[in-house]
Structure formats: structure tokens, C-alpha cells
């Protein structure tokens, strides 16, 4: 149910962004493309930098409140669904990487193509769900957590680079 909540939450946020993209539809496609690529570049530079000092020290907005633990105590099944949903929306969670912001900008500037928003949202939820699923599949959670911490920077940098390359290729 937690995984279902993550996917539904991600889908909802993406659809909202997809609907809002209509506000930017009048902007010429080449400008929207340029802004998306610029956002991806800044996102990558924000992840890069020696000793944890980002090359692009940009502070991005986030709701630094977490889903309260008692959500799970009231009802395990509904609580897991709600917990996953709130995490999946990205609204009540820590956003510790630039990639979700880049994705949000890209969907907003995608030119009111709802299928793009749906795909991005489903993918986001699935990506979020991959963490607990992979952790569980590893069989040794503590070891997996240690490896994750060691690889987190590599994960965010690779993802940022992939987004930059991909958005640069998605010319209007």
C-alpha cells in the first residue's frame, strides 16, 4: 500500500503541474526548451562541487515538515497508503536533491502535454518506490543503508547528468 501511495502521489503532483503548464503554453517552444535545459544544467551544478560545496549554491523551496508517525499508528494499511501518498506528492517531505525540481520545471514547460505529465508522475512514484523495494530485496537492510549513503552523491550527479543530456536532446 505504501508503494501504491507513492505512485498515486507522484501522479497527482505531476498532473497538477501538467495542467498548470497551460499557463506557459503561449511562451515560444524554443524559449521553453532553453529554460528547461538551463534548469537541468543548474540542477547538475547544484549537485557538483568539491567537499560538498555546490558549484551552483541555489536554495530551493521545500516544505521541511515530515509526515507524522502517528499516521501509521491509527491504521496500518490506510496509514501506509497515506504515508506513501504524501511522500509521493513531494509536498510533505525533504527534497534533498535537485532532480525533482528539474523534473517539475520540465513538466511545467512541456507545453500542456498531459501524457508527458502522467508518464513523469508515474515514473517519479516508481522511482521513489524503488528505494524501499530494493532495500527489502537486498535482504540486509543495514548494509544496504550504508552503501546508499556512500553512493548518494553519485546517484544525484548521474541523475542530474542524465536529465541534462536528455532534455538537451528533446528539442522542440
Amino acid at each position, binding site marked *: 500500500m505504501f508503494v501504491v501511495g507513492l505512485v498515486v502521489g507522484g501522479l497527482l503532483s505531476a498532473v497538477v503541474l501538467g495542467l498548470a503548464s497551460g499557463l506557459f503554453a503561449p511562451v515560444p517552444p524554443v524559449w521553453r526548451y532553453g529554460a528547461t535545459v538551463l534548469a537541468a544544467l543548474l540542477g547538475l551544478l547544484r549537485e557538483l562541487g568539491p567537499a560538498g560545496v555546490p558549484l551552483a549554491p541555489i536554495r530551493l523551496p521545500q516544505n521541511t515538515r515530515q509526515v507524522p508517525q502517528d499516521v501509521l499508528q491509527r491504521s496500518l494499511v490506510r496509514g501506509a497508503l497515506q504515508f506513501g501518498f504524501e511522500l509521493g506528492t513531494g509536498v510533505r517531505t525533504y527534497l534533498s536533491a535537485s532532480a525533482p525540481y528539474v523534473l517539475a520545471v520540465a513538466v511545467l514547460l512541456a507545453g500542456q502535454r498531459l501524457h508527458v505529465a502522467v508518464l*513523469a508522475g508515474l515514473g517519479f512514484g516508481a*522511482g521513489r518506490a524503488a528505494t524501499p523495494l530494493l532495500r527489502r530485496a537486498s535482504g540486509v537492510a543495514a548494509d544496504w543503508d550504508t552503501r546508499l549513503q556512500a553512493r548518494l552523491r553519485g546517484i544525484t550527479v548521474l541523475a542530474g547528468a542524465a536529465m541534462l543530456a536528455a532534455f538537451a536532446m528533446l528539442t522542440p
Partner: protein
Amino acid sequence: MTGVQPSARPGRAPAPRRWATDPLAPVLLLTPAAVLAAAQASALTWAMLGGLAGYTLSGSV
């Protein structure tokens, strides 16, 4: 001794399972896939990029 699988170290999964479930595995799969999909202007690019974006929040609650 031949034919005998080395046992996993305590607190660690067997090597094949460890590799298959490594935290880097999704990124190593999705990164080239997303770039290839983008090169073909496939709509699936967005799903893959969404997956990457969601996965970067690993460890965030």
C-alpha cells in the same frame, strides 16, 4: 574447495544478490535508457527521467 559456494559474510547478502540490489543499480540502468529514449524522442523518456528524479530522494523522508 571447488563446487562449494563461498558463504556470505555475516551482515552481507551473497555477492550476486548484493550486486543486483546495489543502490546504484537503478541509476546505472535508467541513465543510459533515458538518454537513448531521448535520442529517439520517445515519450518514455519522461517516465525514465521521472524514475531517476524520484530515486534521487532515496534516504529522504
